[in-house]
């Protein structure tokens, strides 16, 4: 497909989609959102790029092989389960740490890490499948 409208739109939409994915990922802990949808939206951004500029451009824009994202995502999710084990707590127990001064109320914890892992796995799976299907 070679359409200048699509290519221009993709160039504008891609950063928006990626930012929205980050927003959804961070929002997901207490509100609708989370790693799964964020991953899907990131994948959609790259699929859009693929439709506009071809697979090679999309692969180059992703920087890494989607196959290895799958693996890294699994490892990150696994690590979020194993961090509490290092503190002598049961597997997958949520551990929290406070960032910055207390008045910020900025808590980061292993559930966020787990969500990031899920997000990476989803990106990896969806893009591995779409790229493979598009190449066939």
């Amino acid at each position: 497909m070679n359409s200048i409208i699509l290519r221009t739109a993709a160039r504008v939409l891609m950063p928006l989609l990626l930012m929205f994915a980050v927003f959804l990922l961070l929002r997901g802990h207490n509100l609708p959102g989370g790693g799964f949808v964020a991953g899907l939206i990131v994948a959609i951004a790259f699929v859009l790029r693929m439709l506009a500029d071809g697979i090679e451009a999309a692969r180059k824009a992703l920087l890494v092989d989607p196959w290895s994202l799958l693996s890294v995502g699994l490892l990150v999710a696994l690590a979020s389960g194993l961090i509490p084990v290092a503190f002598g707590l049961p597997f997958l127990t949520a551990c929290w740490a406070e960032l910055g001064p207390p008045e910020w109320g900025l808590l980061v914890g292993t559930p966020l890490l787990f969500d990031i892992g899920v997000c990476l796995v989803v990106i990896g799976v969806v893009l591995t499948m779409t790229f493979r299907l598009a190449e066939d």
Partner: protein
Amino acid sequence: MLLILPIIVPMLTAALLLLVRHRGVQRWMAFLGSMTHLGCGIALFRLVQSEGIQVLQSGSWKAPFGIVLVADTLTTLLVIAVGVVGAATTAFGFAGVDPRRESGGYHSLFMVLLMGVSGAFLTGDLFNLYVWFEVMLVASFVLMALHRTKEQVRAAFTYVTLNLLASAILLTALGLLYGQSGTLNMADLSRQWSTAGPPPLHLPLALLFLTAFGIKAALFPWFFWLPASYHTPPAAISAIFAGLLTKVGVYSMIRVFTLLFQRVSPGIYTLILVLSAVTMVVGVTCALTQRDFRRVLSFNLVGHIGYTTLGLGLLSPVALAGSLLYVLHHIVAITNLYLVGGIFLRVRRTTDFASLGSLYRTHPYVALLSLVPIFALAGVPPLSGFIAKIVLVQASFAQGVYWAGGIALFVGLLSVLSMARLWDESFWKDAPDGVDKASPTWKQLLPIGALTLLSLGISVGAEPLLDMTSRVAGDLLEPSAYVRAVLDGDG
């Protein structure tokens, strides 16, 4: 911590395997992952033996609200069996896997399959059990269809359709159960049902569970997906499927029907007894008509599943102990024979009886190694299958269920016939046009030899093993210790 390792180790191996491209390294990683899994299983077994039932409240959410993992003696024995099958089949992979499969994530999927099976054995929560079933189903479907030959894709579709149906039925049962009891924790359900009485729809529930697990375990009349698919994938894959997947169905059936329905609906056990008996007769009779090594094994596998659920149908400690011993013996023996099928595939490029034969003369050591699992499956004394069968027959006679004992004896004779025929057709007869295309490598013979030794070990150590399965059977029929360990935390 030890409790989660049989799930984490394969998962970690699977994730790391995705990063490695070199095929030799992948094989070693898969093998070492399986060996570590086996080691964790043995360590967990020893821990349970010395300190009682182990419970892990994952995420620190206490049962019945969170998902618990529970390890008792039965679970740990089965996790060890998973490790043994995993190690043997990954070791068999050193002899060669087709390159297309191997580059498509074969080893990772293998590990995911091991993770799914271990998870299903370890979980104490019914919904989590469903999730592990799905993990196993996805991994096994892709493993089966990865090479995409026409035959394999057709087999994989039969397989996945029937198993998706089982999943849907299981999910329906879980929805119904949750709507009525408000919990899916097995220990919590067991306690609730014994104090407040079972929910009004317990009979439909029992039938739904029986159907879902019956499809997974390949019981009559739901067994036909198994012989339609197990002879198509490469040897290592069909070996791990045959060794483990149906056993997960059998285990789930035993677990759910001892924890929940035991005192509620006695009629269902008669039904299980009848289905087991019919499964035995139909499976082994069909095996007699087949003319392919792996198809004969598939039908025998179906027939032998009947023995593993017979003890549940009889619902006595002795019978259940016999069935559990049968499960352990069968996992080792059937995995081994499917691996022997891999040798035929290498030597003659087929497992069709028409091209087999004479291997007794040309490869006497293969024949020698296969002799033990073949005769153990046939139930020839003093091998492991014989002891488990005799316990089952005695138990049914002692309970006055003469017809079931009679059928078990009769099917025992039929399996001797079927196995003797298998031996004759594949090793003994003169091969009409059998020309060896290659000879088996020691990489294939080593895992087969190890499993053969283990089969002999189970035969020699049958008495202590039977003592152990008798204890397990007692615990299953009197599940208060399990329930207390999960809910009150006194293991």
